[in-house]
């Protein structure tokens, strides 16, 4: 028996060359060192790695000589007994030793099975040198990200919608369709932020007015009275021809089924937290700019003048005036001389507002008793309503009687006054006075003894007294006539009608117009920093009560400019004024939108509502006070608005 070392090398063409080499001796050493019988040039093999012996020529014992063992049947061992007839495979480092038997000989086949080094391994150049080897594939990433996004932001929201589509209020927690919310809801609708379905009822159907009036019952269903009464054809004719942008938008709207003229066209949502934005000027100007020409062209009669921007294009005010005493109020036609309004009173503003003269002196003498200064001010007689919006009608007792006393007698320290507003009572009081009371007897007159002649003064008193006594019963009629005639207490301020054919003394009725500008709202309270005369410029020089002292457009434009700041006159501190600052559309009796700096107050009143009577403006608005953002609307008291406020 002998050991034969077999080496197999492979040519480039794949042909195998087998070389056999008989090994001398019975003990074969195996290792990396050159002195070994089997020299394996493998750094993973020890210099003297193992010895191979065979006692009987058939069974082979392989014994590891130094600490490092070898692999035998998949396990690392230090010693292995192999029946060469059955054969075995042993592994030393990167080499394989196959033991087999051929005839009498034990064949030891040594082959390198591992690459010399890692770098020697074959590589796929395209993959190894690029990032393909170390990164997950782009295609996989694309699918993963795409599906993830679709699940979270499309399937999820649709699922949320379908599971809650018929409920009023969703349970708390996150709902996937919140990811669709394009912006925060306004403060009025903030509580709906979880309940998309409360407005977005049907999928792919634009928010309908039905969703709005579900909560906003009442007049918000309709447009303003003027608009609601107008025929649809007229409203359509009023609209301005659309520009490029609007045609694009209309195209979008038509293509994608977004009807126009819905509530949300003006009352836009998802525009950010805080109060809903005021309806912009454009929504009015879209029709009212150049409207009359379009209406005429379409065969309608325009009833209002064109307006586009308060700063540049707004008609002159047309206050409600009485053109004759006792006449019905009609809309004034500005531009035809000074406007007059017959309220039935005689009142020269100029005399009362003079800094010198009788009125001023009298006012000064009352300082301390009334809130007078050195002269009369507007506010001494004209007082604002409790809400500050308007000025109360002048009342004789409250606003005039400080100076214009109707006292005619003092009885035991109590002053008797003529009854204001009741001429018949005045006549009766005066008649009674003259009948029942003799003239008080002067003390100087003493008893009824005769006088000494020459006592002139006493005689004068005597004469005056006794003439009075003699005349007394006849004087009542004279006194009544005097009161109602020129120089009398009534005549000074009122137009008097003398008794005629069965009529008694009559006084012209006084009609104080509470609201001259009925189409717009003017808030005196908002202007309290301004002097009255800054706007009511004609007042200090007005000689007659018939002068209409309501300011014109010119005075407003001193401060108010258009929404975008457009103006025709020089303005120092400009207040941008969209239409909605003075005009309100739905005619619900409330004050219109307010400028931003005041709106803060309003927000507080929504969240932290004051008691109902704080802003009680029953007289002005005709109804109960309520917040601008109340959602439970009531039928408005429009009757008052029809009467002119």
């Amino acid at each position, binding site marked *: 028996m002998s050991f034969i070392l077999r080496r197999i090398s492979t040519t480039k063409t794949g042909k195998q060359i087998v070389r056999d080499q008989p090994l001398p001796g019975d003990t074969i050493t195996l290792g*990396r060192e050159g002195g070994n019988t089997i020299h394996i040039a493998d750094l993973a093999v020890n210099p003297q790695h193992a010895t191979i012996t065979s006692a009987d020529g058939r069974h082979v014992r392989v014994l590891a000589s130094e600490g490092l063992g070898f692999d035998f049947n998949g396990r690392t061992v230090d010693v292995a007994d192999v029946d060469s007839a059955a054969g075995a495979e042993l592994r030393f480092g990167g080499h394989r030793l196959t033991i087999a038997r051929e005839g009498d000989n034990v064949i030891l086949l040594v082959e390198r099975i591992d690459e010399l*080094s890692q770098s020697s391994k074959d590589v796929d150049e395209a993959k190894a040198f690029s*990032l393909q080897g170390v990164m997950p594939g782009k295609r996989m990433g694309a699918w993963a*990200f795409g599906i993830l*996004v679709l699940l979270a*932001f499309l399937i999820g929201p649709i699922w949320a919608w379908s599971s809650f589509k018929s409920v009023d209020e969703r349970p708390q927690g996150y709902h996937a369709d919140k*990811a669709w919310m394009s*912006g925060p809801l306004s403060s009025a609708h903030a509580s709906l932020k979880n309940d998309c379905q409360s407005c977005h009822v049907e999928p792919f159907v*634009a928010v309908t007015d039905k969703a709005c009036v579900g909560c906003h019952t009442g007049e918000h269903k309709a447009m303003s009275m003027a608009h609601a009464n107008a025929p649809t054809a007229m409203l359509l004719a009023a609209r301005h021809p659309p520009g490029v942008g609007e045609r694009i938008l209309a195209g*979008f709207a038509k293509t994608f089924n977004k009807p126009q003229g819905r509530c949300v066209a003006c009352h836009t949502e998802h525009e950010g937290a805080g109060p809903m934005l005021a309806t912009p000027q454009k929504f009015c100007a879209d029709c009212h700019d150049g409207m009359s020409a379009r209406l005429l062209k379409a065969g309608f009669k325009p009833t209002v003048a064109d307006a586009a921007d308060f700063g540049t294009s707004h008609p002159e005010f047309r206050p409600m005036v009485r053109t004759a005493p006792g006449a019905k109020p009609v809309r004034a036609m500005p531009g035809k001389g000074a406007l007059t309004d017959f309220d039935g009173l005689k009142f020269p503003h100029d005399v009362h507002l003079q800094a010198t003269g009788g009125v001023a002196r009298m006012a000064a003498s009352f300082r301390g008793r009334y809130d007078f200064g050195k002269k009369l001010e507007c506010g001494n007689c004209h007082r604002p309503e409790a809400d500050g919006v308007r000025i109360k009608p002048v009342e004789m007792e409250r606003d005039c009687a400080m100076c214009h006393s109707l006292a005619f007698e003092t009885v035991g320290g109590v002053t008797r006054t003529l009854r204001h507003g009741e001429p018949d009572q005045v006549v009766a009081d005066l008649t009674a006075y003259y009948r029942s009371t003799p003239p008080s007897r002067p003390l100087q007159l003493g008893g009824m003894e005769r006088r000494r002649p020459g006592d002139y003064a006493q005689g004068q008193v005597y004469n005056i007294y006794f003439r009075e006594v003699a005349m007394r019963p006849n004087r009542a009629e004279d006194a009544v006539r005097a009161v109602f005639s020129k120089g009398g207490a009534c005549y000074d301020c009122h137009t008097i009608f003398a008794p005629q054919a069965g009529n008694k003394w009559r006084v012209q009725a006084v009609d104080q117009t509470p609201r001259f500008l009925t189409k717009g709202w003017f808030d005196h309270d908002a202007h309290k920093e301004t002097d009255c005369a800054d706007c009511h410029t004609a007042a200090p020089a007005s000689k007659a009560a018939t002068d209409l002292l309501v300011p014109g457009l010119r005075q407003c434009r001193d401060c108010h400019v258009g929404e975008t700041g457009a103006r025709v006159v020089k303005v120092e501190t400009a207040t941008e004024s969209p239409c909605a600052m003075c005009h309100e559309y739905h005619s619900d009796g409330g004050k219109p939108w307010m400028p931003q700096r005041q709106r803060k107050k309003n927000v507080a009143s929504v969240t932290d509502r004051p008691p109902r009577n704080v802003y009680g403006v029953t007289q002005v608005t005709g109804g109960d006070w309520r917040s601008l953002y109340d959602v439970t609307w009531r039928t408005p008291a429009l009757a008052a608005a029809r009467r002119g406020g």
Partner: protein
Amino acid sequence: MASLFPKRLLSRRSKATQTERVRERRHEGFLRYANFRWAKISGGLCLLIIVSYALIDVTPRPNGGSWYGYTLGTIGALLILWLTALGYRKRKMTSDYWSLKAWTSAHVYLGLSLIVIGTWHTGFQLGWNVHTLAWVLMMLVILSGLYGVIAYATLPAALSNNRDEMTQMQMLEAIRAFDRQLHAAAQPLTPEDTAPVLAALDEDPFAGGIAARLSGRYPRCATSAALVALATSRSSNADARDKVVGLLKQKEAALARLRQHLKIRALLEVWLYVHVPLTFALIAALSAHIISVFFYW
């Protein structure tokens, strides 16, 4: 044959070919293509949008739902789809006027203009919602693309310098040669000295994750470790050890060159791993954005 084609068309085609030749000669890349034609078009588009945005008064305030917003949104969405089509176009060979270079040039500059189109479409109203998600994804895709353009403009020079006129397979072959020599030279070494050498041989030059590829740093490099171990070892024959140390140094240099090559290639390629998957995420978000608008119309 000539009569089959109108003369004008033929002359135009030959003229186009001539222009193309000039471009080839000048090494005109996709950035300078046609004298920055697409840069001008895209810049003009951006300028038009910015100016018209300032001039057009959209009420109550600018947002994607105004007519201007719809217009920009439609342009943007179509543009995104067209830009994505580059991935398809680059796999198709054509001989038409629309060369891949022209297409890429348009892709880059129109893609950049999407920053303006998309952002101005939002009306600068951003929030935590799917609409802003689409915008963010779009911006990430554009920014990764911008990085890609910069990488393509600057890195190839570095790649070329590092290669030193070797192909990448030659670099690998050099390492293999050093490995073979190391293997032979390390035979006389003692087992404790061969262990580090063996570890160095066992080191995969392509090993290491994305971080190692991008940074080019391999702190647990077995070759460097072997170098340190053998330099301090006293156990084997000094001559044999010196020879192995010399070979290890050479292998380390070859390995450094290969790793620098891998780093630059990684920097050249990595943006695509953001650009492409996020593009599809963007298309998904864009679909959700558009569908959500119409769903809650």
